[in-house]
């Protein structure tokens, strides 16, 4: 369990050394996207370059350009888009609850930000801009400047490590014992 402080956009080498269970803090731009932004990107592509990007499953509360609360939303709803999002160059998906880990192999990491911690997350984020604003506050693609955003746990790494899978398997074993 190593602690890393990384800058975005992430390099291939950044992602290479992360292992499931490590702790990560990110500084630099991160972009939010949830249900509607994903559907829109599938239809007409991303409004910004996602090369090396950290994509955050989050529907924040923003007022007058200030981030008031911005914790992660359930990533499972966006699982159907994982493969194409990673193909667009995203190297880290941030969220909570996890998504199936297979598409991450050899490509990217999934970082778990503690769910329900919107007030703490907001302290580490500033608004730089917004895309797809017509989708509404929660569904817009917010462009945030993050300062030491975390703590996040590497829940899925690019080498096949997957904490959710291991925990689920162990719970199933307890059920059948």
């Amino acid at each position, binding site marked *: 369990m190593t602690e890393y402080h990384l800058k975005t956009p992430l390099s291939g080498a950044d992602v290479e050394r992360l292992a499931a269970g490590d702790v990560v803090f990110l500084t630099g731009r991160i972009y939010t996207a949830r249900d509607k932004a994903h559907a829109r990107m599938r239809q007409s592509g991303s409004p910004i370059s996602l090369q090396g990007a950290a994509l955050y499953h989050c529907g924040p*509360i923003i007022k007058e350009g200030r981030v008031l*609360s911005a914790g992660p939303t359930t990533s499972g709803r966006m699982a159907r888009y994982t493969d194409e999002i990673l193909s667009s160059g995203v190297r880290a998906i941030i969220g909570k*609850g996890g998504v199936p880990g297979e598409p991450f192999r050899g490509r990217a990491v999934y970082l778990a930000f503690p769910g*329900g911690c919107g*007030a703490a*997350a907001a302290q580490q984020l500033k608004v730089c801009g917004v895309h797809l604003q017509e989708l509404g506050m929660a569904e817009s693609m917010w462009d945030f400047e993050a300062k030491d955003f975390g*703590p996040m746990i590497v829940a899925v790494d690019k080498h096949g490590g997957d*904490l959710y899978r291991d925990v689920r398997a162990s719970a199933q074993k307890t059920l059948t014992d």
Partner: protein
Amino acid sequence: MRALQKAETSLPSWVLQRIEDAARQETSQIAKSHLEFMLENVRIAERTRLPLCQDTGLPIFRVQMGRDLRLDFDLHEAVAEGVRVATEQIPLRPNAVDPLTRKNSGNNTGLGMPDIILDMVDGAGLTLTAFPKGAGSENMSLVGMLNPADDPFDFILRTVAERAANACPPLFLGIGLGGTFDLAARLAKRALFNMPGSSPEELKLLARVNRLGIGPMGLGGDTTALGVRIERALCHTASLPVAINFQCWAHRSATEVIR
């Protein structure tokens, strides 16, 4: 409005106590640091008076109304007005959308919202509990129409094992046992209002859930649930309805006695 403000920016002291106790006893380092960060998050929310979670939920309320009380106004409309003011002032995230068009009403009220559970009680008082309910945990909730030969606790454990990670554990589990399809669901919601439980069955189920090892946010640990409450009703001799209403660690609720 005042009840919502309190509910959205702080947690009841017994909830905080349970998280603190769990943080102290956790043996997994990841789990312990998650629980400590959750407590830190609540302190920040209280200090800044901002919503502790960006999912400020759907507006759910329980109103306990004295039988001797006569209201000369529309209770539903009065609560809705409070929700609209709270949405603007706290502020809350506008979450309420039409189920088909997905169009957002913009103020968390409209068709069927707020949802008010009304109980008649003795006296002439009016007590209102705000219980904003986020989607992460609500989405994982389930009603099962079991065969009376089935074990309802096995069903609950299998459901929790499969779904808990997405519901922001450590959880509070509201269980509705018996009744009908819809009554079971309402009992499960009531169980969340009446949390925590302390009967032998409730404590046994809590211990079994925690043995699953799902842990905070599904990343493993000793703390999968912080409370279980079971509400029951008679059911048909041929039925066994079981409802599980998941509640995330942020068991937000605040009560105002209205004079």
